[in-house]
Structures are given as structure tokens and as C-alpha cells.
């Protein structure tokens, strides 16, 4: 019974979180957004003390149920082991293995150090929930969107607007590769030995394991009933039951209840044991050290091949549109609500939830080694639209704080920079002003390029005090592949 409850709850969480990462419309988040927010590491980084304490208390009372119910990566491993079990004709050959304490401690130390030193990429690599998020958003969301697009095509034919098409695009090769490697490694480990990852590498598992050691409720073997068949040991995917010695390593037990159901003799029960000492751990791993300054001082984007307006002689047809290229930004842009590059680096676990929900193609995982896979904005596919606050709504880790649409319009995440040699009125000799026309902040004016000649081509001038760095100008600039106006990020966001 306990096992069935565990499986039911685990499936609810697993499917819910998967849906969060698949959904690109932002509707699921309104209902299930909390499922991401109760994840341990994001909650810790967001300094949601309430959630962290509640999870620790939960573990202290029930053991590591977090790992078998709430954590999507944990449940994913259970799913893989379950499939493995069917393929192996129902017989699992797990066996007790000694705890690899040294490995757990090493990984834990590395992880804490990475957190303290602000090496976001390493934190992101080890964080379990984020690893799952990356797998779904880089590998499965594209499939989901493609399927949606098929339905959208059918809807279009039926003149229905129930579905709309969304773009599938390669956001980052690095992140995709990491996701593939993570999936393969974890799946292979789970196929062969169950919860190896959770009990050797996962820092959350290690921390909760430490608490679970003293948990109030835990599976206990009744020696008087045990006939020594070792069925429990063979079915323990955490490899933590030493049947011979009638001992369970509670730091590794994820409270899956499989052993309780398996035992023919009813020798294992989930029992109340009040004899433990009160050793709590408040999980306050303060992150206070600043991460290294951003580097990459480089020359500004060059080489512009502007679409030449050729004289038309026949009717119809469409001009070829060259793809925009990403300008080299001295300071990367982070989305509104992220406060600063530092805040982003310290809180983000690179789960990709914001990236998977961004409807404008703005957010993508960074390729900078120091903050690998953490989100970054760029405007060659779209711009940070004034009515959208989706990334801020979904972020579970406090890396992007919740903001309102009104607040967004007053947050300067960067400022626009004009590149004279790309500007169409000067190169093509035509009227433009598309940047000024679309600036939601009214920060761009068009002025005559020659102060003495009112008839001279008009060029944009930017009032950086008003500019919020949304990128409408950069995205809608007709100059290609490099825009004549682009956004430089602000390391610390400002408020107007």
C-alpha cells in the first residue's frame, strides 16, 4: 500500500514537472509552477527558508521520500530501472554494496566549493532537478513542439485557432550535449544498478541522506520474522539493505517501500523509531562570495553585408532574408528580474525552465564556461517583449525574481548602442526609423545626420537614460546580418 501511494505521488510529480518543461505556451505554469518551486536546490538558492526547512523536516520524519517522489531525476531513474526489470524478465539482481562515503564527501565538497566560488556551471552540472530539466527541455521539448506543429497544421486546415505553430531551434549545442551525456550516463547507471547516481554523486541526496539517517520513520527488519531469503536486498535499487546483517543504510534508503511489499514474511515494516538524537541541519549554505568579473573585452561586431535594395523590374516574389548574427556583447544580457549577473550566477541551477518557456526566442543557455547553461538573452530571433514576464514567473531558484509588467518597463537590463556603418539610411539612402518606431520606452529619436541640413538622412539617437535594453531596436533593425543598433548588457540592472 505504501509503495502504491509512493508510486502514485511520484507519477503526479514526475508528469507535472515534465509538463512544465514541455509546455511552451505558459499555461501549465499557472497550475503546476509550484512543483518546480519545491525542488530542494532551487529553493535553497532562492533562500526560500520555509521550503528548505519543510523539506528537511519531511526527510527527518519520513526519510528520503523527497528523492523517490519529488525529485524528477530520481523518479526518472526508477522508471528506467522498472523498464530494465521487465526486460530482465522480472528479476532484479541488485545487491548490497558498501557506501562509497569518500566519493559522496568529495562530490559534496566540490559542490559546496563551486557554490561558494560561484562556478555556476559545476553547480548546474550536479544539480539533479536541473539535470532533468535540461534533458526534457533540450531533448523532449523539441519533439513535443514538433508534434504540436503537426496538430497546428491540421488546425490550420480546419480553420481552427486551437493550436499555433512554435519554432524549434538549436539553442545551444553545449547544453544539448550535456543533456545527452547526462541522460545516457544516468540511464545506464539506473539500468544496471538502480539509484547509483543518487547515492554517490547527487549532492542533494547526500545532504538529505545525512538527515535521513536520523529519521523518525524508516523501514526496519524484524529479525525474528526474517528467513534470510535476501529478496529485499535483491530488489533494493538503492543497494542499501544488508540482508545478512539485517541492516539498512538509511543515508541511502530513498523510502521507496519496495522491500516492504516484496517481503513474503512481512518482516519489514515502516516503523516509528523515537530513539534517534536530534541532529537537524538547517541547510544554510550562505553564498556570499562574488564570482569573477566578466571578461570578453572584444571589438564590436563588424563585417556587415546589408541587403541591397535592387531596382525591381518584375512583379511578385520575395527577397531573401539573411539570418541575423549575434553581435559580440562586452557584457552579456540577463533577463529582467535577474537583478545582476552576480545574482544570476549565484542562484541559477540551469534547469532551463525559463529557456523552455520564453515565447520570443530570446533566452538561451550560455556557453561561457563559468556559467555554462545559465540563461542569457540575445535578440536575433525576437526581443524581450513588454507584455511578457514568463521567465520571471517560472524561475524556482530566485535567479529571476518575479516582476510585474509595469516593473519590467522600468528595469534597465542594458542599453542600445548605434553602429553607424550598418545604418540603412546612410548605406541604402532610404528612410527607416524602424528602431525609433518600435522602442517601447521612447528612448530613440530620429535626427538629421547632418545638423546643417534638415533634408539629410535621419539617424537614430539613443537616450540611454530611458533605454531598458529590451532589444526591439536590435531585432527589428533591417540591417543584416549585423544590426545597426544592438544592446549591451548591464552587469547590475538599474531601475528608472
Amino acid at each position, binding site marked *: 500500500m505504501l509503495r502504491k501511494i509512493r508510486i502514485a505521488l511520484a*507519477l503526479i510529480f514526475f*508528469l*507535472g514537472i*515534465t*509538463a512544465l518543461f*514541455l*509546455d511552451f505556451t505558459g*499555461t*501549465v505554469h499557472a497550475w503546476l509552477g509550484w512543483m518546480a518551486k519545491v525542488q530542494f536546490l532551487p529553493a535553497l538558492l532562492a533562500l526560500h527558508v520555509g521550503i528548505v526547512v519543510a523539506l528537511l523536516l519531511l526527510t527527518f520524519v519520513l526519510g528520503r521520500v523527497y528523492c523517490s517522489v519529488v525529485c524528477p531525476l530520481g523518479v526518472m531513474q526508477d*522508471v528506467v530501472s522498472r523498464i530494465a526489470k521487465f526486460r530482465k524478465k522480472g528479476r532484479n539482481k541488485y545487491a548490497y554494496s558498501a557506501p562509497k562515503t569518500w566519493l559522496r564527501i568529495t562530490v559534496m565538497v566540490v559542490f559546496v566549493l563551486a557554490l561558494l566560488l560561484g562556478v555556476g556551471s559545476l553547480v548546474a552540472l550536479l544539480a539533479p532537478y536541473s539535470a532533468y530539466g535540461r534533458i526534457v527541455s533540450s531533448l523532449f521539448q523539441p519533439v513535443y513542439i514538433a508534434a504540436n506543429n503537426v496538430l497546428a497544421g*491540421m*488546425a*490550420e486546415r*480546419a*480553420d*481552427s*485557432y*486551437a*493550436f*499555433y*505553430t512554435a519554432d524549434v531551434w538549436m539553442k545551444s549545442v553545449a547544453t544539448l550535449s550535456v543533456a545527452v551525456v547526462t541522460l545516457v550516463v544516468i540511464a545506464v547507471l539506473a539500468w544496471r544498478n538502480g539509484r547509483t547516481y543518487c547515492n554517490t554523486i547527487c549532492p542533494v541526496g547526500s545532504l538529505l541522506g545525512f538527515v535521513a539517517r536520523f529519521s523518525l520513520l524508516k523501514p526496519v527488519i524484524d529479525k525474528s520474522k526474517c528467513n534470510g531469503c535476501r529478496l529485499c536486498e535483491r530488489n533494493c535499487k538503492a543497494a542499501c539493505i544488508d540482508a545478512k546483517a539485517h541492516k539498512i543504510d538509511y543515508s541511502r534508503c530513498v523510502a521507496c517501500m519496495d522491500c516492504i511489499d516484496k517481503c513474503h514474511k512481512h518482516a519489514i515494516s515502516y516503523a516509528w523509531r523515537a530513539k534517534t538524537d536530534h541532529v537537524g541541519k538547517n541547510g544554510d549554505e550562505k553564498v556570499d562570495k562574488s564570482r569573477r568579473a566578466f571578461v570578453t573585452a572584444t571589438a564590436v561586431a563588424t563585417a556587415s553585408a546589408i*541587403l*541591397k*535594395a*535592387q*531596382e*525591381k*523590374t*518584375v*512583379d*511578385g*516574389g*520575395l*527577397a*531573401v*532574408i539573411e539570418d541575423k548574427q549575434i553581435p559580440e556583447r562586452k557584457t552579456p544580457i540577463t533577463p529582467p528580474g535577474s537583478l545582476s549577473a552576480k545574482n544570476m550566477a549565484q542562484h541559477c541551477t540551469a534547469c532551463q525552465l525559463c529557456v523552455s518557456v520564453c515565447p520570443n526566442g530570446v533566452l538561451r543557455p550560455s556557453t561561457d564556461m563559468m556559467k555554462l547553461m545559465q540563461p542569457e538573452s540575445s535578440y536575433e530571433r*525576437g526581443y524581450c*517583449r*513588454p*507584455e511578457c514576464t514568463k521567465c520571471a514567473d517560472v524561475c524556482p531558484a530566485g535567479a529571476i525574481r518575479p516582476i510585474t509588467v509595469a516593473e519590467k518597463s522600468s528595469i534597465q537590463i542594458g542599453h542600445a548602442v548605434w553602429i553607424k556603418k550598418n545604418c*540603412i539610411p546612410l548605406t*541604402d539612402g*532610404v*528612410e*527607416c*526609423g*524602424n528602431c525609433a*518606431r*518600435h522602442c517601447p520606452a521612447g528612448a530613440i529619436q530620429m535626427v538629421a545626420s547632418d545638423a546643417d541640413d534638415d533634408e539629410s538622412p535621419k539617424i537614430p539617437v539613443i537616450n540611454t537614460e530611458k533605454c531598458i535594453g529590451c532589444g526591439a531596436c536590435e531585432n*527589428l533593425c*533591417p540591417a543584416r546580418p549585423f544590426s545597426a543598433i544592438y544592446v549591451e548588457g548591464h552587469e547590475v540592472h538599474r531601475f528608472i
Partner: protein
Amino acid sequence: MKKNMKENNKNIDRRHFLKVLGVGTAVTTAAMYGCGKKERAAVDSLGHHDGETSADKMTYRENPTTGDRVSILGYGCMRLPTVSSENAQNGEDEIDQEMVNKLTDYALAHGVNYFDTSPAYCKGLSEHAMGIALSRHPRDSYFIATKLSNFSPDQWGREESIAMYHNSLKELQVDYIDYMLLHGVGMGGMKALNGRYIDNGVLDFLLKEREAGRIRNLGFSYHGDVEVFDYLLSRHDDYHWDFVQIQLNYVDWLHAKETNPRNTNAEYLYGELVKRGIPAVIMEPLLGGRLSNVPDHIVARLKQNRPEDSVASWAFRFAGSPENVLTVLSGMTYMEHLQDNLHTYSPLVPLSQDDKDFLEETARLMLAYPTVPCNDCKYCMPCPYGIDIPSILIHYNKCVNQGNVPESSQDANYRKARRAFLVGYDRSVPRLRQADHCIGCGQCKVHCPQNIDIPNELHRIDHFVEDLKQGLL
């Protein structure tokens, strides 16, 4: 598990969609049956047995100068069918020659004998395609009309223009042209007329070609500045125009100025031609489909009056009824269009005075809809910055006609209309080709025969889209 996931995601909207899909299929099937029956019935009542419009019932008009018997239905070759391909949205569509041949054969077999093309049509491929299709028939079985489409100032030179004329003969595989037109005079005013045809002596050259018999009829097609129209007619005694092509339909007859103050009512244009006894060739009888794709209550109104006839047939009967009309051009992309038009004109049932009053009332009702008067002629294309101008305007018009252009968020159907407009916008026009990318350079403006202030309209639509997206209405 996948199934579970799906069920989780399914919301009412999707369920509703699937339902609509199901019902839609059923209705379509029913409608198709319905059509079939109706058509058979209509045909039977006219006494045909072959299930098609009879080939010998076409109405013909006589050209007073050459005595040509011209079918009242003329084939416009500006909207030839294309092979739809993956890349069609990127402008890489090709003409479907096989279908062009089929349509041409069918049209000729059913009495159509006037084909109107231009070196500029269909990205410059129309003449070539029509040359292939028509050269398979005896030269005396059809009249070919083409134009001197030297719009771009680089083509204003005498040699370039004459080369264009010779190239037309080559592409069309003929050694004489039945109907030759100065193309779109009025666009660009007197300046363009002088630059294109007068100063470089090209008009004199064409007059000589007419004397030599390589041009059997010389005329001009007119759009835009009425000064040019009046000027050319005032020189009729010198030039002896054999025909003039004008835009005529039941909206432009009396209301051209209401759509655009720079346009001229067809009643005036036609009247001037009658005065001088010059036959009129009619273009845009259907306004690029805007007179067949009309709001539902107008469909109901027209259908109620003549339930067996198509919406488009009203427009064609209107254009064909005046006696001085030589032929009515229709750019028929699909076989169904051709068949419907053949049905309307085999034979033409001229409008009664009641019918005319009825259409005049209909025109007034249609003017209440703030559509952009774009006929999808694509003269504005290609936009050097990649904007798909006609698709944007057509999408906007479609939404206007379907009531999906909400004026305020308080409108009863606001949410539905907003979604239909925005989702439909992304479907009709790729994002990079939408109105927000229009820089307002104005290069398209001079090419529009309907005098639409294109950049202004695009910016207005873009502004509306922004209001919808940001929820500012």
C-alpha cells in the same frame, strides 16, 4: 505514461478543436455533395447533358476596328497556378506549367479566346508559360494581349523598351501581338508617361509596328492619376486607340473615391470611352477576390437573390453588362474559378435595372468594412527588405470581414478575435516578413495600382498587432 501525459495536457480548447474538426469534416463532405447536386441541377435546367458548361454558349463582343470576335471572358495571366512547395513561403514557388496547359486548353475549348499577360507578371515568367501553353494551338484560335511593362527607370531607354517588346514576341512564340498595351499609365503621373513612352519615342515605335501589322490593336491600361487618362484620350485623334483597359466593378463604378480619393470612378472612365467609341477591356472585375470573399451577411444577401449563382458571378455580370465592354479579364488560378466564370458568361445574362440597384446597395454595405483595397496583384513585390506586403494586407482584410479586428477589449468576442488575428497572422506571414519589419522606405508605394499608401497601412496594422499583443485595446 505518454498517454497519461497527453490526457493531462488536454484542455477544453483542444477537445473543442477535435470536435470542430470532426464536425467540419462532415460539413465539408456534405457541402461537396450539395455543390455537386446543385451544379447538376443548374446545368440540367439550362439543357446541357454533359455535366459541363456547353462550349458554344459563350457571349462574344465585336471589336469595331478589327472585327475580332472576342469572348466576354478574358483569361488574365497574372495569377497563374504555382506548384506549392515547402519553400513557397520564401518565394521559391514555380509556375505549374502542366496546370497552365490544362486551364488554357479547357478555356479555349469552352470559347475563351482572349489571353492577357505581361513581361512583369508572375516574377516575369507569365509570358513564357503562356507561350508554351498557347503555341500548342493554332495561332488564329486565340488573341494574345501583352504590355510594355517598362516600369523601372532603368528600362525607360528606347532600346531597353524595344528589347522588352521583342522579347515578348519571343517568349510568347508569336510574330504578331493582337492587343498591345502601354502598361499601367497613370502610375507616376505624366512624368512617368513621358519618360516611359513619349520622350524616348517608344509610342511612335509602337504606332509604326501597328502600321506594319505586328501589333493588331494598340491601347493602354490605366491606373492612378486621371490626368494621364484624360491626356491620352485627348490625343485619340493622333493615336487612334483601338481599346483601353480600365478597372471596373460594382464598387468602383460610383465609389472609387471613397476607397481612395486619388482614384477615379469607373462610371467616368467608361463614359469617356463610350463617347469616343473606344472598346473597354475590364480588369479587376472582382477586385482580386475581394468581391467574392465578402462578409457572411453579404453572401447571404447575394445568394438569397440568386441562390444558384456564385457570389463572384454578380461581379462578372456587372462588369460584362455594359455593351461597350470588349472583354472582362479574370485571373483564374483554379479550374473551379474558370468553370464558375464560364457558367456565368455562357451566356451572359445582363443585369436588369433592379439588379444594378441591388448591387449598388451591396456596394454601400461593403464600404462599411474598413478593408485595405489590396487586390493581391503583387506589383509592390518583391519588397527589398523582405516584407510580404500582400499577405499582410490580405490577412488583415480577412480578419476585417470575419469580425476579428476588435476595437476594444470590451468587445464580446475579444479573446477569440485576438487569438484568430494573432495566430492567423503568424500562419499567413512568416515572422520575418511581417509588418513590424517595414522600415517605411516607401519603394513599394509608387508600384501600387490601387494607390494604397502601403508603408502607412503596414505601420497601422503593426500598431494594431502591438496593441493586441500587449493588451492595450
